[in-house]
């Protein structure tokens, strides 16, 4: 595997999974804030569905979106199958319940007095919601990182929706699968190591940044 191809695969992994983590977080964190702050009929059912969804195998989500995005599927006319966009969409659905679950737990652990204190000091309900998010920023970031890690390490969705097209949708995990299928185990191990180092680097970067900010206090 030449260096250019490797760099492209790393870039595609970071781009699709990073984007998926951002999009999923933008949906999941407000949803978790709503779930954590409100009591309503059917809330337990929503949480149960979310927990079940968390355990969905990647190939099942891949298959679902394959049937939607393939030419004969209801979204086939958009021509998204075997594109990075399709990979990102599939990964968003994969990690959405994970980020909702982790964020919900994080927000439930914020002292209930935080919101009340913000309100009584003159915050609007929206501002009070932001304050709660700020108080839970560290565990929320862990939730987003966990989502990113799940997306960057999955192979089923990337393979089924991306198609493992060289220099177009081939990412690290589909490259590993290909190299292993070819019998190039050393290449597979090296790619796996690169994936781990990448994930470790991102985690370290974010956590060091957060610790630095917390130390200021």
């Amino acid at each position, binding site marked *: 595997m030449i260096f250019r191809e490797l760099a492209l695969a790393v870039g595609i992994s970071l781009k699709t999974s990073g984007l998926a983590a951002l999009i999923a977080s933008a949906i999941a964190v407000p949803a978790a804030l709503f779930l954590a702050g409100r*009591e309503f009929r059917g809330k337990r059912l929503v949480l149960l569905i979310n927990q079940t969804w968390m355990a969905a195998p990647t190939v099942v989500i891949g298959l679902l979106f394959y049937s939607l995005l393939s030419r004969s599927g209801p979204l086939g006319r958009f021509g998204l199958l075997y594109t990075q966009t399709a990979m990102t969409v599939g990964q968003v659905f994969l990690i959405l319940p994970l980020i909702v679950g982790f964020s919900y737990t994080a927000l439930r652990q914020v*002292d209930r*007095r*935080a919101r*009340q*204190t*913000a*309100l*009584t*000091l*003159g*915050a*609007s*309900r929206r*501002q009070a919601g932001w*304050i709660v998010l*700020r*108080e839970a920023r560290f565990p929320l970031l862990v939730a987003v990182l966990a989502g990113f890690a799940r997306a960057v390490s999955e192979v089923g969705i990337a393979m089924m929706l991306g198609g493992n097209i060289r220099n177009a949708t081939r990412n690290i995990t589909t490259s590993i699968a290909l190299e292993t299928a070819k019998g190039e185990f050393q290449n597979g191990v090296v790619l796996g190591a690169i994936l781990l180092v990448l994930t470790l680097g991102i985690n370290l970067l974010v956590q060091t940044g957060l610790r630095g900010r*917390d130390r200021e*206090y």
Partner: protein
Amino acid sequence: MSGIVYRLENVGFAYPGIPSSFSLKLESLTVRAGEVLALVGPNGAGKTTLLMLLAFLVRPGRGRLEFLGGDPWAGDDGAVLARREAVLLTHHPYLFKGTIADNVEFGLKLRKIAETERAARLRAALALVELEGWGTRSISGLSAGQAQRVAIARALALRPRVLLLDEPTANIDAGLVLRIEAVLREVGREWGTTVVLSTHDFSQASRLADGILYLSEGRRVEFSHENCFSGTASTDGRTSWIEPKPGVRIVFPGVTTGHVTCVIDPAAIRVLPGGEAASAPPGPNVFGGRVTRMETTDAATALVRVSGDLVFRAALPVRELEAGRVSLSREVLLRFDLKSVEVVGKRPADARKPA
């Protein structure tokens, strides 16, 4: 005191979804600008719930709550404008992660107060609670008392129209309590701030408040004729006394003259069963009467009303009642120490009544 800040009519509130019989019901309550109103009562009496209502954190289930002559919930902003005028300081205050300055300036930033003004208010508020120069310190590692003082500074920095305080000195060293009380008096005098505070400490209520609202099980307990007496003080140079009725004296230490109001802390009153009255040593502040009402306030204490020449309400440990076989309709003897009589000063007697 001029304008009316709060007017409550037939207000009722029950926590939704909580299987509890507790509910707050108040037929009427009026709080005027600049007034200091103390909410007194046992745990679970509804003091905190009433403060939450007055802080617009919860909405009355029924009845009418007016703030500054209008309905605070009329807009679609969730009473945010009213909440910016009435700041609640809770018993166990929550401090946001960050520095003390971050906390004190929190509400100022929400109100978009200019930076120079914020800095000035930060300094002034920290000075009031004797935390000068602490602004850059982290909130982690603060003691409960220090956290309470930061929360008080945070509320004072806003210079609100109404200050709602839920047991404001509960975590504070005894030495600082008087300082905080002085601060509360000062803000009332200087800024015309209306203060509503809840406290278990009847003496504190007497020291601070223009009016006392005694709550029990979510209802107002009429308190104006119990433990609260007015009269013209006489003195022998060592002690003083008033005579709410001819020949009935309430004695207190020191030299006081003029028209005064005296309040006796229910917890300071001791009861002896009538049978022991004959053997009780004679002395000042001893009164006979019949038990006309008993109500349990929690597992350990009960409120007992004794009607005789004067009407008293005593908060007594249940075991003391059992040991003394005190029961309804029994004749008992009351006694309280001279020092437990709080002299509120030269005020008209009706100023002590709940508004």
